[in-house]
Structure formats: C-alpha cells, structure tokens
C-alpha cells in the first residue's frame, strides 16, 4: 500500500445522502476477478444522466469526493473502494460512513474523512461557486484546508499511522503469529471444523 501523507486536488460535490455501495458499483460490474478495471462501473446507473455531477466537465479530474451522510451503506463489496480508486479518487469526505465501507477504504488506502455536515455543506457551496477550488487533506496535521480555511478532523492514531507508513495489515499480524498459535492451542475441542466434510 502506498504511503499517504497529504493530498491536494479538486472536488466532486455529490449532494446525496445514503449513497449505498450498489450505487457506487452495481452488482453487474462485480464479475471481474481483479482489483482493476472497475472505473467504468463507478456510479454505473447514475452516469446515464448527463446532468449527473460526474459527467459535468467542470468537475473532471476531481480526486476528492465530498458526499452526503451515510456514504457506503449496504453491501460489503470492496469493489466500491476499488471503483473509486480506479477512477482516480484519493479521498472521500462525508459526515458519516458505513462501518464496512470505511474499514475497506482504510485497508485499501482510500482515505475517508469525517467532517460535520455543516462543513460538508460549506465545501459543496464553495466548489459549486468555483469548481477549481482545491482542497488539501493532510493526515499529518489532520486537517482539510481550502480557500484559506482549515478544518480539523478526527482519525484514530492507529489507522493514521498505518496509512502514513503505508503498512499492510497482514504483515503486522504476521509479527504476532506466535500469539495466534498459542490461542489456537487453547481453543475448545467442540468448536466445529469444516474438514472432514460431514453432510
């Protein structure tokens, strides 16, 4: 995973709440067996509408998505994160994320930033009046800044450290693998095993 310290880019303002992962990437696009190539399915159904914000030329090249409350609800498909990344997004900002989507993003290196709804609205207004406005999302100082304004955001220290170091979770757990073995040695004998198969 790439190290994430700070990112500056333009913004796609998505004024919708409850954007579920079926909207981010509809199921028919989930058939690929790779982590790439999902950009064509991003917001697959909405993209047919020429008025949809992703189709507007003034927002092309945006790398920061700013969405309404409850972003990423529903299905656990990490394809939603890959689709956003494949399209070029580095950061998603919302006032509330669904747990699984947020976890998937943090594992895959897409930064999710929670800001109060009022700040989200302020960013939308700023971008809509000047789509060229750039945001800087800095993990070191835990701030989102634009137009001379700087907003502090909360992120837990562990996730922040992992993202800034670009660390892979499996590698971290492998360092504790002896503890895993010790735990396994104490597991109750009645716990089920899938092999041999009984039916």
């Amino acid at each position, binding site marked *: 995973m790439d190290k994430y310290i700070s990112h500056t880019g333009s913004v796609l303002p998505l004024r*919708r*709440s*409850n954007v*579920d992962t*079926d*909207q981010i990437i*509809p*199921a*028919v696009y*989930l*058939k*690929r*067996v*790779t*982590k790439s190539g999902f950009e064509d399915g991003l917001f*697959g*159904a909405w993209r047919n509408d020429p008025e949809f914000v992703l189709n507007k030329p003034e927002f092309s090249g945006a790398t920061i998505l700013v969405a309404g*409350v*409850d972003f990423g*609800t*529903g*299905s*656990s*498909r*990490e394809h939603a*994160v890959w689709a956003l990344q494949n399209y070029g997004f580095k950061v998603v900002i919302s006032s*509330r994320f*669904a*747990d*699984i989507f947020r*976890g*998937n993003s943090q*594992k*895959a290196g897409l930064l999710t930033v929670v800001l109060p*709804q009022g700040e989200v609205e302020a960013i939308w207004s700023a971008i809509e009046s000047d789509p060229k406005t750039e945001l800087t999302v800095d993990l070191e100082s835990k701030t989102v800044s634009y137009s001379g304004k700087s907003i502090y955001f909360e992120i*837990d*220290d*562990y996730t922040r450290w992992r993202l800034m170091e670009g660390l892979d*979770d*499996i590698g*971290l*757990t*492998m360092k*504790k*693998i002896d*503890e*895993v073995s010790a*735990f*396994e040695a104490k597991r*109750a*004998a*009645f*716990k*089920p*095993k*899938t*092999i041999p*198969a*009984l*039916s």
Partner: protein
Amino acid sequence: MGNTLAQKIWADHIVSSNPGEPDLLYIDLHLIHEVTSPQAFDGLRLANRKVRRPDLTIATEDHNVPTLNIDKPIADPVSKLQVDTLRKNAAEFGVRIHSLGDIDQGIVHVVGPQLGITQPGMTIVCGDSHTSTHGAFGALAFGIGTSEVEHVLATQTLPLVRPKTMAINVEGKLKPGVTSKDIILAIIAKIGTGGGQGYVLEYRGSAIQALSMESRMTVCNMSIEAGARAGLIAPDEVTFEYLKEKPHAPKGADWEAAIAYWKTLKSDADAKFDKEITINADELEPFVTWGTNPGQGLPLNAKVPNPADIADVEERGAAERALTYMGLTAGTPLKEITVDTIFLGSCTNGRIEDLRAAADVIKGKKKNEKVRMLVVPGSARVRLQAEAEGLDKVFIDFGAEWRTAGCSMCLGMNPDQLTVGERAASTSNRNFEGRQGKGGRTHLVSPLVAAATAIRGTLSSPADL
C-alpha cells in the same frame, strides 16, 4: 458490572490486545463465495502465503450463479470465469467447496446453519454484509471486505476496534400475519439506516424468544440495513434443538461441553448497553418499504408519505428522490400499488419455513395473471425439502417459476433481474435503486405479504384475501 453477550464473545476471542491498537480477534469460521474472494486469493499467491486454517474455511457458489439449467455450463463467460476461479482457488488452497449441483450448495448464510457449522459463541466472517444472519445462534458474525478476506485466509484473525452494544427489546406477542420480517423492517424504520452504525445489536425480549431459529435468522440478517455490522440473539433451547442433529454439531461429550458453554452466552442482568430501544410487538403490522433505502418503510395500511411532512432536510430530500425513482405519488394507499414481479427467496427469506408460509397462503389459488413470480430456494437442500413436501407443485400450480438455489434477484447479478421501471414485491433485504436490476423498483416484504400480493397483484397481506 456485568457484560453483554457481544462483549463476552469478543473477550473469548482476543488473541492480542494492546492500548492504542485494535484488538486482534480469532475467527472461528470463514465463509467464502465467488464474488469477494478472487482478489484475496491472488493476494495470497503474490505474497507466497497459504490458507492458515482450511479446516475453518468453507466455500460455496451463490451470488453469480444461474438458477436455471445448472446442468449446463454458465452462459455468461465473465460469470463462468468468476465461478471457475473460485473452484481453482479452492482446489489450490485446500478449501472445502460446495459447487453448483452439489447437495450442499446454496446461499452461504443458508448453508452454514444447515450444516451445523454455525454455532453459539463463535466469531464468523464472510465477504458479504449479510453474515450478520449467523448472529441468530448467538455468534458474533459480520461482513468483511476483500482485504479482510485475505487477512483471515492468511492469519485466521482480524484486527478490529471494539464495537458499542445496543439492546433492542421486542416485547409482547405478534398478531397473526405479522412475522419476523416485519419486526426487523419496523426496527430499521425506527432507528434508520445509520442508527446501528458502530454497534452490535442484541435482539431481546419475549417476541424474539418466541421466534423459531429461521425467523431469528431473518431478524439478524438485516442488522446491516440498520447500519450495524452484527446483530445477535442469546442462544436458548430453541437454538440447541435446531442444532442437535445437524451434521457438524458436536457429538457425545463434546455436545455436553458445548451446551455448558453455550448456556453462559447471555448478557448479564447488570450488563450495561451503550444504547437501548424498545419495540412493542403487539402493535406491529405487516410492513412494506416505499422508498429506496430499507429505513423507508411503513405499515401496509399506511399511505405513501408526503416528503413535505418530513422535518429533517436530508430525509426530506431522500424521500423526494425516492418517490421519483419509485414512480409513486404521496398520499397513495400502499395497498393500491400494483406490482409486476414477486421474488420469494434470498438469505433473508429463502429458508424452508419461508417457502412453507408462502405456499400455505397460495395453495389452491391462482397467481394474478399480470404478475410473474420467482421462487428461489436458499439452498439445494431447502429445494429438496420443499419438493419432498410437495411445495414445488403448489408454487408451479399457482403459476410461479420454481428455480434452483442462489442469491438470484436479491442482488440482480445473475440473469434474474428486473427491467427498467419494473416493480417488485421482494422478500429480500435491499430496496436500493437498481438493486434488483437497472431501473427496477423494489418493495421489501415478508413471505406472507409476497404471497398475498402475488394473488391480488397489489401490495396485500393474507388478511386482504
């Protein structure tokens, strides 16, 4: 102070716990399917890693498989590649797999319980958000993404931040015609799609205790629709009775040891939940969704809401968008809404009791000629059981299509999809825009409401017949 059930299971699975870090939790069972696993196996190969515990892992094919002509090769080459990839990965890494045509194939959340590998007190994960279904057994079960699938394959653990716990007390007695599906739809309407975010839900109270195992699974299944990654119910005699004869249930002395442990799996009387809500079961009615998220639901006797009456700005906007998408007018009685398709199936309502309940309503009647009805059993065994009971004949005589097992129209990934503007009464779990097919419109209902609607052609409950 005592502990909640979720806290107890959590504590029993901590491999390592350090300040400032997530806890490392041991995973007792990892369920796998074709859609969210290929990239995880690729990751293992790239890092030259093995599956640590193939004996705690099991795969089945469900999301992207056809429900017709399963004796023939899968027609869509991209779907075929995905299913073949799972088969190849299972063979290469030594994972048990139940493929299309196998008697134990089916929706992953139907297969686990019927094999008896879903048991109380376990940690269970799957790359599918409806893994919460297994919480009905008093297990801590939740959906994970593909990065986490790879992590579990490699280490049989997950680093996780301890969740808060919420008690949902459902007290009283359900009226005839009101089911566990109506309980969970009412809960989601009450707390909203984000209400459970950050919590494990524990469903409690006399109305929950009175439910069968399968009905409990329906409740826990949709915890994610309330924003909670997991939901669970304390195990009791109903749970033990269900598990007793299952193939992978503990036997002999192991059974005794298991029961002794399972009986400790309940929230202590003095346990403190971070949040608590109460629902009166006596007052519940058959429920139906009118919008495009599962929180947009109302009793079937209600009318399509008027967004102007909704105080919250966000919710009002969402309601306006939903009515446009759903093609509905505020003030229309829900029972006057005409549907085109009935879908009976899914990990929410595709088990034998669901099929029996629906068959009971339609027996000897004819399907409304304007609707099509798809009946998709949750697993091959559910299908065989239904056929042994003659339910397939009831559905076919009624005019429904009797299919083979899979997720099917619940997520519209295989050919079973709604077309643009087509309206469904569906026993599944999500009414998102396009969920069941691009442009399709979904009303979530119980199997009883689905059956009555298939007869009348408009959203109905058996009481309307």
